């Protein structure tokens, strides 16, 4: 049975300060005009009434992470005999993310299926994932770009979170989702919240009820495959794409990476950094050949991967959490919903014999 606690709005910061003694705590605050998950700082205002510019993706999947430090050393007897010492840089410590949205937290479940497979777990991801807890805030308003309801989720979806916080009148109802989450709810600043449960449920229902534009994407995997070879279709939908990485880098469920070694002198590091399937470098081969030479090919990959290929191998789960950041932040105003619907509705022209 989940633990249910209540916290007054005014107590949020003191509670986070408490948590910060044991964990790295991230909460949304402004950096310039961008709302980001930043290390908790009591001096800074925590902004919870809108979705952050960037999901808390970096907390588990850093933009660039140093996987390995390596050092060359020479045999003094024979300088051309070189030894390499490599040291893995496994992440340590635990992290709490406060104020993530259901879509943000759910995004990592898309990662999990890939990085935490039994056969080949990614130890770096694993280490962070295990030790990163999400206190997720249920959404009270649905933004124009939101479409979590299209992808089997909703504004109060606890999937992927450790604690779900539902905004109620004068504070938040905190519901533990995981065991680790339950441990976070032991503060003296929290009071038993059972009495407010009904109020919270009502709020959740109200929000869910306000959504009326749900689309059925069941056919998406199959329909997208159907237009796979229709480059004209993809050229048209990608015409305005600028091939930048804003959509992928702001996406809570995009998990591609690239590995590079940077060496200076006798020392070096192996970096894993975000990759971006919109970039011409993505899948660029050493020969200069690129199986995805144009932006049409690449946008096809992004949409296809999320709405067709991933669900095909992961039990129908669409690898998109519907946060809408790719729509909001696209400098060219590309709307992924539009593309998916277009593919579903696409009727191939009758082939004339």
């Amino acid at each position, binding site marked *: 049975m989940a633990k249910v606690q209540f916290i007054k709005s005014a107590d949020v910061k003191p509670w986070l300060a408490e948590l910060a003694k044991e964990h790295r705590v991230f909460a949304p605050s402004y*950096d310039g005009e961008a709302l980001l998950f930043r*290390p908790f*700082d009591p*001096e800074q205002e925590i902004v919870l009434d809108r979705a952050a510019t960037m999901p808390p993706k970096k907390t588990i999947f850093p933009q*660039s992470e140093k996987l390995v430090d390596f050092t060359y050393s020479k045999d003094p007897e024979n300088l051309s005999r070189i030894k390499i010492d490599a040291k893995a840089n496994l992440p340590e410590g635990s992290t709490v993310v406060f104020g993530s949205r259901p879509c943000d937290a759910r995004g990592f479940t898309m990662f999990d299926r890939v990085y935490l497979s039994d056969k080949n777990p990614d130890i770096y991801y694993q280490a962070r994932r295990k030790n990163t807890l999400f206190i997720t805030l249920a959404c009270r308003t649905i933004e124009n770009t939101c479409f979590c309801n299209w992808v089997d989720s909703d504004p109060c979806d606890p999937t992927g979170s450790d604690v779900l916080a539902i905004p109620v009148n004068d504070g938040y109802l905190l519901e533990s989702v995981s065991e680790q989450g339950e441990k976070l709810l032991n503060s003296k600043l929290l009071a038993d919240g059972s009495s407010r449960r009904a109020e919270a449920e009502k709020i959740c229902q109200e929000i869910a009820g306000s959504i009326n534009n749900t689309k059925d994407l069941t056919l998406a995997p199959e329909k997208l495959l159907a237009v796979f070879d229709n480059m004209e279709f993809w050229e048209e939908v990608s015409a305005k794409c600028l091939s930048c990485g804003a959509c992928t880098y702001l996406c809570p469920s995009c998990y591609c990476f690239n590995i590079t070694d940077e060496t200076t002198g006798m020392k070096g590091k192996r970096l894993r950094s975000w990759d971006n399937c919109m970039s011409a470098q993505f899948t660029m081969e050493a020969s200069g050949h690129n199986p995805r030479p144009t932006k049409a090919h690449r946008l096809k990959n992004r949409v296809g991967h999320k709405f067709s290929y991933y669900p095909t191998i992961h039990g129908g789960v669409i690898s998109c959490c519907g946060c809408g950041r790719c729509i909001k932040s696209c400098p060219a105003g590309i709307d992924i919903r539009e593309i998916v619907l277009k593919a579903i509705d696409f009727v191939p022209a009758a082939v004339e014999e």
Partner: protein
Amino acid sequence: MPVLKGKELRIVGFLCNWCSYGGADTAGVGRFNQPTDLRIIRVPCSGRIDPLFIMKTLMNGADGVLVSGCHPRDCHYAEGNFYARRRLEVLHRFLPILGFEPGRFEYTWVSASEGQRWQQVVTRFTEQIHKLGPAPKIAGPEASATLRQMEAVL
């Protein structure tokens, strides 16, 4: 190891092969004493010096960058230093917007015969950099704490 602590600062020179590198050689042949901070990178022509090398050098933590080429009209390649002059001047004027002191980067002309002038240029530039002191260092990827302090200042 590379910079003698308390004695030297990191000063990088980009010199064209034909005039200024020769001028530095002439200064050596003439045994014209110079401060030891400067490390010279030889390039064929000042026209080869992409201003981005200078930015990169500063970004990498150099305390000063000195560029020297043939006097205008004397370029071994006829026009290289004319292009260089425009590009380096633009860079020189641009750097302060980034917060680099304007004097961290200078460019000048020294011919292969001007050993003495080279000595003066090096001495003067080195003094200028020592007066400015070590360049401010850019925070590394781990320096989020420093960044937050900066934010507090701003």
